[in-house]
């Protein structure tokens, strides 16, 4: 086991724990740069993982760090996508301006949802966001002039500073750059007072208040920031799927996004990315598992029913909450600790403790 000898406070303010960790991230970045050469057939899928990563980051800020569970994030993704396509195609604005405007609009939508959400907690907030998502989906299908209604709307490839990102490879690097940028900004926020205020609100609203945190302002801020990230993801998502239709941004997508952060591990940026990889691979695994089911008493026809997939998502969500509430990231930490402590690993290290006397909480 390695111990870190700290000699200055500034050491803890860095983005990375130490040089070893930084070198691993540099290695990962280098691997991502050469990855398209290694697996050229999967470049498109990997860019989707990056877009999912942005979505995961967005929901992680809200659900994982501020403790506000949203089931309406597909709506923010949709608002970002439609707004971007409207600005970039209908109004012919430059790509960057269009994405920035889409960001501003989704952030405004986030504030709009955040304001009534200040009076709601827990499951009621989740229900409110779910209702919001359904209303927005309805607007997508009715507001023909902007969204193209149920007929849908085709999306061109992004063009930046006269350079076309039409090829899968160029789009891959665009997504990667935006994901890294978003990760950097989010990590900055999380190591600054704003991030601490969010975590404080998650763990005890009343204590946060008594420490001088304006709960209303910080909750709204979390909603706006989360929605803005979703706006960027939405713009990229629109290019990725190249055709927008209202039924894409369904509740099922919202559940998939939530699945991402829960499976990845709430409360860590790593978790958002692990979740993104998981959610991107899952449909592939499901379809392969389906093909492998033998034709026994019509079982193969049963598993090919279309409604089975959402059910499976729900099942995975429940199983993770029951058996690994810390998600893939939590499991990874356990495995790491197991080897670091070998042979002295104690299972009880990660045992969940009951909170002391929480019954008399004020809110």
């Amino acid at each position: 086991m390695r111990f870190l000898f700290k000699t200055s406070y500034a050491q803890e303010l860095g983005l990375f724990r130490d040089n070893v960790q930084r070198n691993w991230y540099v290695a990962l970045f280098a691997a991502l740069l050469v990855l398209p050469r290694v697996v050229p057939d999967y470049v498109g899928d990997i860019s989707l993982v990056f877009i999912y990563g942005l979505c995961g980051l967005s929901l992680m800020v809200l659900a994982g760090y501020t403790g506000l569970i949203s089931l309406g994030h597909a709506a923010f993704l949709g608002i970002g996508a439609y707004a971007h396509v409207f600005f970039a195609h209908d109004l012919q604005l430059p790509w960057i301006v269009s994405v920035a405007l889409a960001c501003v609009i989704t952030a405004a939508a986030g504030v709009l949802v955040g304001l009534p959400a200040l009076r709601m907690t827990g499951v009621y907030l989740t229900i409110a966001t779910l209702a919001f998502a359904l209303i927005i989906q309805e607007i997508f299908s009715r507001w023909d002039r902007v969204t193209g209604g149920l007929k849908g709307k085709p999306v061109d490839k992004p063009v930046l500073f006269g350079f076309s990102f039409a090829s899968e490879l160029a789009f891959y690097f665009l997504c990667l750059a935006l994901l890294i940028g978003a990760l950097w900004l989010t990590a900055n926020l999380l190591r600054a007072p704003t991030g601490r205020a969010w975590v404080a609100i998650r763990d005890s609203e009343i204590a946060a208040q008594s420490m001088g945190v304006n709960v209303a302002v910080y909750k709204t801020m979390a909603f706006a920031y989360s929605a803005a990230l979703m706006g960027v993801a939405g713009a990229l998502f629109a290019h990725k799927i190249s055709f927008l239709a209202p039924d894409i941004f369904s509740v099922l997508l919202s559940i998939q996004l939530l699945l991402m952060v829960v499976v990845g591990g709430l409360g860590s940026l790593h978790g958002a990315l692990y979740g993104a990889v998981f959610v991107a691979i899952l449909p592939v695994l499901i379809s392969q598992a389906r093909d492998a089911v033998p034709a026994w008493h019509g079982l193969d026809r049963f598993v090919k029913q279309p409604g089975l997939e959402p059910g499976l998502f729900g099942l995975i969500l429940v199983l993770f909450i029951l058996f690994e509430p810390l998600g893939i990231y939590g499991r990874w930490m356990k495995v790491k600790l197991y080897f670091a402590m070998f042979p002295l690993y104690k299972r009880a290290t990660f045992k969940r403790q009951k909170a002391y006397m929480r019954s008399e909480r004020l809110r």
Partner: protein
Amino acid sequence: MTLLEADNLAINFGGITALAGVSFEVRAGEVLTIIGPNGAGKTTIFNLVSRIYDPTRGRLSFCGEDITRVPPHEIARRGIARTFQNIELFEHATVLHTHKRSRFVEELLFLPRVRALELEHRGAVEKVIDFLDLQPYRDSLIVNLPYGVRKVVEMARALCTQPKLLLLDEPSSGLSVEETEEMAFWIQDIRTLLGITVLMVEHDMSLVSAVSDRVVALNYGLVIAAGTPRDVQAHPDVVKAYLGS
């Protein structure tokens, strides 16, 4: 000099009168304890001072300014910090994180000014950690700490806002005899070394007599006695309130 003054403070929850016109003052530099049987309205006073509840009637002033209608998050900036009876800590933060306090774009880019401010906060937090001997727990998660330590951590969290007035809600509840004795030392140190005025609610009379300069006794939302710990303990109304007539 009067630091905090409550004037005829009253609050009703529906038909129940929790406080029926309580007046008291906290002088700068003293330790004032509020005692009283269960349901006397002790914690309600704290919740009124930290502005979680709105009083039905009455006035609160701090450092000569009216704080009766100030929003709860403003209270910390004015110099009042509190602890909670049932410990309200940020469970998944390390001791260190809990302690640091709070411009959005600057933070987003983590500009040098944010870094400097963070280092400054960190210095202030380390002083509190040193003061309360919390060094061994600096990097541990709150969930993994024993109850007695959490109690001290909660006090440390309150001290990190660098208050003028510290409200302690039952600092000894759930603590062993030794931990309670230690708590008495902390409270004395906070008063004498840091010069922070303390207002506390407490049941443990040994702790009350050890640290407090004055005691206010409450029963059914009214002040029944006030004075030195010894006088209040011997007051016939107080004896009656605790033991029945």
